[in-house]
C-alpha cells in the first residue's frame, strides 16, 4: 500500500498524493499550497500565462454534478500547467446508461488519465475512486455531497491571507446554510489548522449540523451579534432545493434575518471583507449593494481559485 492508511490522501512519505479533504491535512502542506499559489499568481500576470510542469499529462474533469465556476477554473488551471484537459459531464453520459462510477473511472484510466478532478453529489465518492485507481494516478476532490470542497476552502484561505496577511488575530464569521454546505466544513477545518483564533457560525438552528460546537466554533443565531467586530464575513449559498423542505419558512424570511445587507455589514470591522463561493442568490443570502460593494472580494476569489488549483495539481502530480 503506497498510501498512508490513516490519511489516504498522503503517501507513505507524508506527501500529498490526492487532495480529498482539508480535515487532517497537515499545516505544513496547507501553507505550502498557499505559498505555491502565490508564485502562480505571478505567472498568471505575465504575457505567457503557462508553465510546462504538466506537459504531456492528461487531466480528466469528472463532474457527476453540474458546476460552472469550479469546472472552468480547474480547466484553466490545468491548461496553464500545459496539461491536456478532457471535460466529462457524466449526468449526460454513461451514468444514464447504468455504468458504475468505478467502471467509468477504469475506462478513463485505460485512456491513460494522469489525474481525475471529481465532483459528485455523494459524500465520499472521490475517496472511493482514489482507493481504486493505480498508484500513479492522482484524485482531487472538487466537491462531494455535504462533505468537503477542499480547493474552495484553500482559495478562500488564500483570499483572506491576501487581504488580511495573518490569521492569528482574525475573527471570522461563516454565515448561512452550514448544514448542507461542504464549503463551510472546509472553511472550519482550514481556519482551525491555520491558527484562526475565533471562528463563528451564524445560522438558524434548522440549518446547523448537530453538535457543530465540537468543531471549535462559536454559534450565533442572531446575525447582528454574530457579525459584531469580525474581520471576515464568509457567506454561504442558500441552496434553493432546501426551500422545498420544512427547514425554512421562505426566502424572504431568510433574507430578513440572515441576508447580508449594508446595515448588518456595518456591525463588522470597517475594513472587513466579504466572501461568497458562488453562485450567489442576490436578495436571498446577500444584497446586491454588498455583493458589488467595496468590501466584496467575491471576484478576486474566482481569480485566486485558478492559482490555488494550479498549486494543488502541480504539487500532487510531482509526488
Amino acid at each position, binding site marked *: 500500500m503506497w498510501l498512508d492508511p490513516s490519511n489516504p490522501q498522503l503517501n507513505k512519505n507524508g506527501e500529498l498524493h490526492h487532495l480529498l479533504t482539508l480535515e487532517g491535512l497537515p499545516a505544513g502542506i496547507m501553507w505550502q499550497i498557499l*505559498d505555491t499559489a502565490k*508564485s502562480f499568481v*505571478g505567472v498568471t500576470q505575465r504575457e*505567457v500565462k*503557462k*508553465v*510546462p*510542469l504538466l506537459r504531456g499529462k492528461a487531466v480528466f474533469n469528472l463532474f457527476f454534478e453540474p458546476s460552472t465556476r469550479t469546472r472552468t477554473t480547474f480547466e484553466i488551471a490545468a491548461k496553464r500547467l500545459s496539461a491536456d484537459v478532457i471535460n466529462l459531464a457524466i449526468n449526460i453520459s454513461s451514468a444514464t446508461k447504468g455504468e458504475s462510477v468505478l467502471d467509468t473511472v477504469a475506462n478513463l484510466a485505460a485512456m491513460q488519465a494522469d489525474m481525475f478532478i471529481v465532483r459528485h453529489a455523494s459524500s465520499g465518492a472521490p475517496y472511493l475512486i482514489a482507493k481504486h485507481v493505480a498508484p500513479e494516478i492522482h484524485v482531487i476532490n472538487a466537491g462531494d455531497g455535504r462533505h468537503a470542497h477542499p480547493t474552495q476552502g484553500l482559495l478562500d484561505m488564500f483570499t483572506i491571507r491576501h487581504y488580511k496577511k495573518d490569521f492569528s488575530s482574525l475573527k471570522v464569521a461563516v454565515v448561512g446554510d452550514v448544514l448542507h454546505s461542504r464549503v463551510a466544513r472546509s472553511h472550519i477545518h482550514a481556519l482551525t489548522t491555520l491558527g484562526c483564533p475565533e471562528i463563528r457560525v451564524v445560522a438558524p438552528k434548522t440549518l446547523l449540523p448537530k453538535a457543530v460546537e465540537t468543531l471549535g466554533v462559536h454559534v450565533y443565531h442572531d446575525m447582528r451579534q454574530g457579525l459584531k467586530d469580525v474581520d471576515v464575513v464568509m457567506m454561504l449559498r442558500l441552496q434553493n432545493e432546501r426551500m422545498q423542505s420544512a427547514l425554512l419558512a421562505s426566502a424572504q424570511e431568510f433574507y430578513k434575518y440572515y441576508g447580508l445587507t449594508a446595515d448588518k455589514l456595518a456591525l463588522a470591522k470597517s475594513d472587513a471583507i466579504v466572501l461568497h463561493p458562488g453562485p450567489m442568490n442576490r436578495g436571498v443570502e446577500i444584497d446586491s449593494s454588498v455583493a458589488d460593494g467595496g468590501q466584496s472580494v467575491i471576484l478576486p476569489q474566482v481569480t485566486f481559485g485558478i492559482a490555488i488549483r494550479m498549486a494543488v495539481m502541480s504539487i500532487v502530480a*510531482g509526488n
Partner: protein
Amino acid sequence: MPGQPLPDAEQLLQALIEKMRPEAGPQTGLIGIHTGGVWLAERLHQALQLAVPLGSLDVSFYRDDYEKIGLHKDVKRSDIPFDVEGRQLILVDDVLYTGRTIRAAMNELFDYGRPASIQLAALVDRGGRELPIAAQFVGAEIQVDPQQGIELKRGESGRLSLVFYTQGA
C-alpha cells in the same frame, strides 16, 4: 572534509563587479536566480549603479527534475519589474555546475518576451556541465569533488560566504 578551502565570496564578488562594469549599460536588465543569485544580484545592482530595477527568478516551475523529485517545497515568486522584450539581460547565479538551472531560467525568461541577448554571471564555475552553457562573467573557476555541494550563505551583516554541503543530505 574537503581538502581545498573555498575562496572568499566577498573577494570574488569584487572581481565579478570589475569584469561586468564595462559591459553593463544603463538599460541592462539584471536578474538574480533564487536564492544565492538574488543576493549577488542585489550587490551587483548597487555596485554597478544600474537604472533598471532588479529582477528575480525562481525556476521551480521550469526545472527538468520535476518528474523525478516533484515541485520544490519553497517556491518563491518570480518578479521581472521591467520589459524583457528587446533588452540586454544578465542572469546572475551563485554556482554554475550542470547548467540545468540556467536552461530553466532561459525558458522562463522567454515567457516574458524576446530579449536582445542573455549573458550569464556566476560567482564560481565548478565545471561538470551537462548542457552547452557557458558564463561570460565568472568570479573564479574551482575544482571540487563531484560528491560535494557548494552553496552561498548570507550572514546577519549581509556578508556572503561559500560553504560545502553534502549532496543528498
